[in-house]
């Protein structure tokens, strides 16, 4: 009988079996869920967002590796949690499309180095890294963060097509101004471009639903996808909604935070909506779809690290953010309501977690 020496046998604490799901996979799912919205945004507004995301991802990986090395951590292991990439993607989506490279770099630096690693790295950051990066950028470079010029074909006044080669080129030149053959003249042509609201900035609260307008005009599906009809924002938001529902279905996020955020915004906008007169409070529909509500509710506020932990706590956290979003949007001075509201929510988390824990019966 050949019994192996006991030292060959692994001794281990239970459980002996682990689920195959890893943190890295969860983060990948979050990024996958962004795809519909990013596609929409690219279709309507050009490759600016994609450029942002790509650049931010590269910067994020480099900075994360550098900080990990500096902190004497296992670089491979920590990079494999993909959290830096998620931060980069969210930041890339929320910054003005085609932001210049230094702006992206500063944003990623603030998000990864200051908001995350300075507080102890993944899992210890009290604030959402992407939103912290965004807000710091906004405070330092308000102009760059609030203006967005869609590159037009150089001929100028005719309707732009973001997917045409010319505008791809000029998008890239926007990001790297030195690449332009004649920077000065191009800069002036950019300013002729169409000024748009950036993704986190609410643009048309006072207006009407573009999709509704199109449908009223009996345009059908083709007309909705027509860039001229300005349905872009609403469709991008729908993209985020679809991605968010996907995440919920995959159980990556629970329903509590999105539902409470959207619910409280819906309630407030129904309450304060004034159809006519000088009031520009905006209809409930526009609050949900004409703005950045969806990305905020499904992708930003649900970052588990900086959100409340218990179900009750999540509901409360969502309500705080929802009210914050609505108040800042309607009565406040800043246009980037989501970023500020999420940070306010983050501030409240320790207290919420302290009071909303599960009760144990004895």
């Amino acid at each position, binding site marked *: 009988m050949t019994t192996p020496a006991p030292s060959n046998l692994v001794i281990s604490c239970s459980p002996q079996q682990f*689920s195959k799901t890893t943190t890295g996979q*969860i983060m990948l799912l979050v990024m996958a869920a962004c795809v519909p919205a990013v596609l929409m945004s690219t279709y309507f507004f050009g490759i600016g967002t994609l450029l942002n995301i790509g650049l931010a991802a590269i910067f994020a990986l480099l900075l994360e590796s550098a900080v990990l090395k500096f902190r004497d951590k296992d670089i491979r292991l920590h990079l494999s949690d993909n959290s830096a990439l998620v931060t980069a993607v969210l930041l890339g989506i929320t910054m003005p499309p085609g932001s210049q490279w230094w702006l992206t770099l500063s944003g990623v630096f603030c998000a990864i180095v200051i908001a995350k690693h300075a507080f102890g790295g993944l899992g210890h950051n009290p604030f959402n890294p992407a939103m912290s990066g965004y807000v710091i950028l906004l405070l330092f470079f308000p102009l760059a963060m609030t203006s967005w010029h869609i590159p037009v074909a150089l001929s100028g006044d005719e309707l732009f097509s973001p997917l045409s080669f010319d505008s791809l080129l000029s998008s890239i030149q926007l990001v790297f101004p030195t690449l332009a053959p004649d920077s000065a003249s191009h800069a002036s042509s950019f300013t002729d471009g169409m000024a748009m609201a950036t993704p986190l900035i609410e643009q048309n609260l006072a207006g009407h639903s573009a999709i509704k307008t199109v449908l009223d005009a009996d345009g059908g599906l083709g007309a909705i996808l027509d860039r001229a009809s300005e349905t872009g924002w609403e469709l991008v938001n729908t993209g985020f909604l679809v991605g968010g529902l996907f995440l919920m279905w995959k159980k990556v996020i629970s329903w509590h935070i999105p539902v409470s955020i959207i619910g409280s915004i819906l309630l407030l906008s129904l309450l304060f909506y004034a159809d006519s007169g000088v009031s520009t409070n905006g209809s409930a529909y526009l609050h949900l779809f004409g703005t950045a509500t969806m990305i905020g509710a499904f992708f930003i506020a649900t970052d588990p690290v900086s959100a409340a932990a218990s179900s009750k706590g999540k509901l409360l956290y969502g309500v705080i953010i929802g009210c914050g979003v609505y108040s800042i949007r309607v009565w406040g001075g800043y246009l980037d309501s989501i970023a500020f509201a999420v940070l306010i929510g983050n501030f409240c988390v320790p207290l919420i977690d302290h009071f909303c824990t599960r009760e144990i019966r004895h």
Partner: protein
Amino acid sequence: MRFPFSNTVSSSRKSHGTRNWIQPEANKASSLRSVIMETPIPDYLYLALKQYNGLDARPIVNVGDKVLKGQKIAEARDEFGVPVHAPTSGMVAAISRHPYPDEFGSDAIALCIKTDGLDRWIPRQPEDDLHTLSAQQLIKKIREAGIISLAGSGEFPNREPIDTLIINGAECEPYVTCNQALIREHPENIISGAKILLQIYRAKHCIIAIEENSTDAIDALKPALEDQSIELNLVPARYPASSDKQLIQVLTKKEVPASKRPEDIGVSIINAAAAAAIHNAIISGEPLISRVTTVCGDTLKTPKNFRALIGTPVAFLFELCGIDYSRLSRVVMGGSLTGITLNNLDTPLIKTSDCLIAGSSQEFPSAPTAHECIRCGFCSSACPVGLMPQQLYNSIRAGMTDKAQQQGLDDCIECGACAYICPSHIPLVQYYRYAKFELKDQNVRYEQSRKWQRRFEYRQHRLLENEKRKQGNRHRSLARPEIIETTDTALENFSREQASIEIADAVARVKARKNKKNSEDKT
């Protein structure tokens, strides 16, 4: 890309409270179909005196004694304990330390029986007419047969007013199929055992719980249950549905409070294997000397369910299944979520061993390196007790075990669901074990230091009393001894007086020495 969540956490709401429980890969298929096989008798059997969480049994045979199958060889030390019986006939070869299956890989005293292969029984006393026996007599008989609830805590419940009796036939842990096989092949034994228990407890309801996906066991039990007062209830095949308190909650919708036992809310729960053993003990007069055990794992050619004698070394069972030793990397006793690893293949089966897994390093890769906790909350939704595992983890990491205790650490049943589901693969259960030990240790240390403190105080008090008495003798005419108010102040006065006297003495001595020195210098 693989989407990881489609089958790990189920979203259907079939039963109260189980909707977020985990559904680990069951790995039951390999052993499930096999009929229960009687094992041959090994040459040596090792019967640990400790067969459950209580006190060790006391041996009542000597080395060299001949024993018969079913003979009592060790008796219980207290009223909660159960005796140990010889699983076959043979001779007591040794009473010594032998590897014992526990999480520390330690030794325990075991009776070693060299078997003679004759398998001769002692005279058995089957019971013909149950109804002549009182509940007390039945309980005594069951205890004498060495029966403990064959899973979980292993204790046989005491007699208290019971409203619902639950026979736990569910096996939610991966790999384990022994109960299912037992129910499939001997449903009548389990029902008969349940009836005996009903007679003892006079419970209003009796429920046999099986997992809803063990169709063969259900098919076997259904016809046997017709025109019986026993119900069959199906529970979701989710982990840890078969854990006692969780099963009670699923079946009765009653929650067993954390610090209470099921009996306190009028429920008694007993494992199906124990019910079958009770049948054997009362109806056939056979004590508990064997059990059905699943033997599986990917290093075995033919995984099986065995009826194995208690005390059989695990290597013997593995070899019956054709083990490939070269690939063996981990031996687990119990399911893969709460099971313990064995470091010695001579470790014997004990009465609570329901499963043995001989796995290769492919089947049990070493635990992935832990990432940081991302506070995703998966662990909270998996925890059947309703704890927040990540909070416990944070408190323990911060060294605040007492805070973890406030957060419910003591209620953790170490089921491992949280550690299984954690995407960052944090070994959460290890942290909880560590903290529990730490707390126990603190308590012990605290008690010890209290004891020493009391001893010290008492001694000071005694010295003081002596001193007082002496002084009182000396100055009897001047003063009566005072009544001491409290030890502390008395002690203080005492030491202060003492100190001043000593100081005066010392000063005097120093002066004397100085004078002496001065005079010497002068001369």
